[in-house]
């Protein structure tokens, strides 16, 4: 059993990190082509094999459009000069890009990519580490990537990168709170922190936001949809802020900070920041899919008809999972090219005044709905009225706080 476990773990680490990395490059081509479509351009559509540098007359055009563009981008990054300015703090300057990429890839470990595979009577979960603290593990490791960005800004020893680093530090800490609070209702409903069990529950009883089969058809689940939808909105928006994606990309906003925390970086070191951002985006999409949209499950009761544990079923489930993740990555890209950037005080107000309070109230709302069968309709309505009054009061306080002029420094 031990050797089987070790071999399976090594294989899974290789395959899943490989999948994540190839998804990062797929993200790049998606981002460029999709943004081109949105802006009515063509985008990169004709990468060629550069035979002319070998002495041939013409470059070889491959008939697959711009799909090889990521290869060209990668080559460009590797072949560029790796320039380290003389005034930087060398050690931190070198270690910062790695501190961004490594946490983003580590978080992949707990995400279940497909249904468990049966081998010799043992079920092998299709996640590298089938931990009982899945979402917490992701939050903990993802919170370490703040160091990379902050240190990059500080180690560059120059004004704009420093602003970028400080901004990102404040932003990520603020939105981590909303992120953690927003999924408490979800975890209360599932009653477990194991992502594998969460997905399994959703295959039998309906996806969290699409309860159309199994126990999902009960009235209780449909009332629960209200707090779950609020949790989904807060969670998704906070993921945007955590990955420094567009409406919240103030740490690297070009119009104010040149390039933000990676202004002084070039070549492969810059590419590592780039990869870290996209890897975080892939993990974020995977987490959204796992928690709210059934992970690897096909849904609509089809999974129960399939022979679980067969290798082709696992493969099919992995394909379904990746398709869902791709959908969310496209959503991330769509938002980046449609929503304009926030101002910094708006960002902080949204995080601390709107999302924090909304997530907190949402926890109580979900608790009320979950307790509804045991406290009866009277108690439920009474609690709802109380919660409503508290909410109104909170909104009043928040408004009076927001109206006062504040001195923002950064």
């Amino acid at each position, binding site marked *: 059993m031990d050797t089987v476990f070790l071999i399976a773990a090594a294989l899974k680490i290789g395959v899943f990190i490989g999948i994540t990395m190839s998804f990062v490059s797929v993200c790049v081509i998606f981002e460029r082509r999709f943004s081109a479509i949105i802006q009515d351009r063509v985008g990169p559509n004709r990468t060629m094999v550069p035979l002319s540098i070998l002495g041939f007359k013409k470059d070889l055009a491959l008939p697959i459009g711009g799909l090889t563009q990521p290869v060209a981008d990668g080559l460009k990054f590797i072949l560029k000069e790796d320039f380290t300015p003389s005034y930087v703090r060398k050690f*931190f300057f070198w270690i910062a890009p790695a501190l961004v990429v490594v946490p983003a890839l580590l978080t992949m470990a707990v995400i279940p990519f497909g249904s468990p595979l049966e081998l010799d009577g*043992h*079920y092998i979960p299709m996640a590298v580490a089938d*931990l*009982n*603290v899945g979402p*917490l*593990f992701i*939050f*903990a*490791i993802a*919170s*370490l990537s*703040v*160091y990379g960005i*902050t*240190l990059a800004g*500080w180690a560059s020893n120059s004004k704009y990168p*420093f602003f970028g*680093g*400080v901004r990102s*530090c*404040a932003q990520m*800490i603020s939105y*981590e709170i909303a992120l953690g609070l927003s999924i408490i209702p979800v975890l209360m409903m599932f*009653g*477990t*922190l194991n992502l594998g069990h969460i997905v399994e529950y959703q295959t039998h009883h309906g996806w969290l936001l699409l309860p159309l089969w199994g126990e999902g058809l009960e009235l209780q689940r449909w009332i629960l949809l209200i707090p779950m939808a609020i949790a989904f909105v807060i969670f998704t928006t906070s993921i945007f802020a955590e990955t420094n994606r567009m409406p919240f990309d103030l740490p690297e906003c070009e119009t104010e900070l040149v390039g933000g925390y990676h202004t002084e970086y070039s070549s492969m070191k810059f590419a590592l920041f780039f990869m870290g951002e996209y890897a975080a985006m892939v993990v974020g999409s995977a987490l959204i899919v796992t928690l709210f949209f059934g992970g690897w499950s096909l849904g609509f009761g089809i999974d129960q008809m399939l022979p679980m544990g067969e290798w082709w079923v696992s493969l099919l489930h992995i394909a379904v999972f990746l398709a869902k993740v791709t959908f969310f990555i496209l959503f991330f890209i769509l938002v980046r090219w449609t929503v304009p950037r926030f101002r910094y005080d708006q960002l902080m107000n949204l995080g601390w005044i709107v999302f924090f309070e909304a997530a907190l109230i949402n926890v109580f709302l979900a608790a009320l709905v979950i307790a509804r069968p045991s406290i009866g309709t009277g108690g439920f309505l009474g609690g709802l009225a109380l919660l409503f009054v508290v909410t109104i009061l909170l909104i009043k306080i928040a408004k009076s706080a927001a109206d006062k002029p504040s001195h923002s420094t950064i």
Partner: protein
Amino acid sequence: MDQFLFYLFGFLALGGGLLLVGFRNPVSSALSMVVSFIGLAGLFIGLNAYFVGIVQILVYAGAIMVLFIFIIMLLDLNNEKPFQFRSATILGGLAIPLLFAIQVLGVIQKGPAEHSEKFPLITEETLQQAADGFALKSDGELLPASEQTAIYRSLAHQDSPKLPDTNLIGETIFKHYNMPLQIMGVLLLVATVGVVVLSKRSSKNANKQN
């Protein structure tokens, strides 16, 4: 394998702690403290305490140390001046570690010998025994399947019984120590409000001086 990981994370925790004291640059010191915390988290996870280990990273390495580094960078602290030895500081520096060493010795002496009956290692049998304790009602009857708790199901799982440490901590805190928890929450709230009041007052004074 377990031994190797224990020594690896133990080395990380100790090495990080030593470097924290050794470095002159405040940012390097803070970062080696992060390394030390990660080593500690690894040791907790080695003891099957996943929740404590993860919270160690989430709270200490991920939030508190980030704030430390944030402050150090904003204030732009320079390297510390070379240390001047004084007899009082040396005495203090010797006395405090000595106290801790005595404490550690006491704990080791009171601790269980290997494989003692009171503190058995976590195996499938001991997990099953623990599960039996959770399966019974107060009058000694077995619970029906619908009322079995998540703790029981996790402890008595046929294929791979696991220690449901998160559920156990939740059970202990929210059932047995609910009142102290609430009081601690209020204490933290008081501290937060106090910080806000203090910072508001000092900024008002600064405005007056201007």
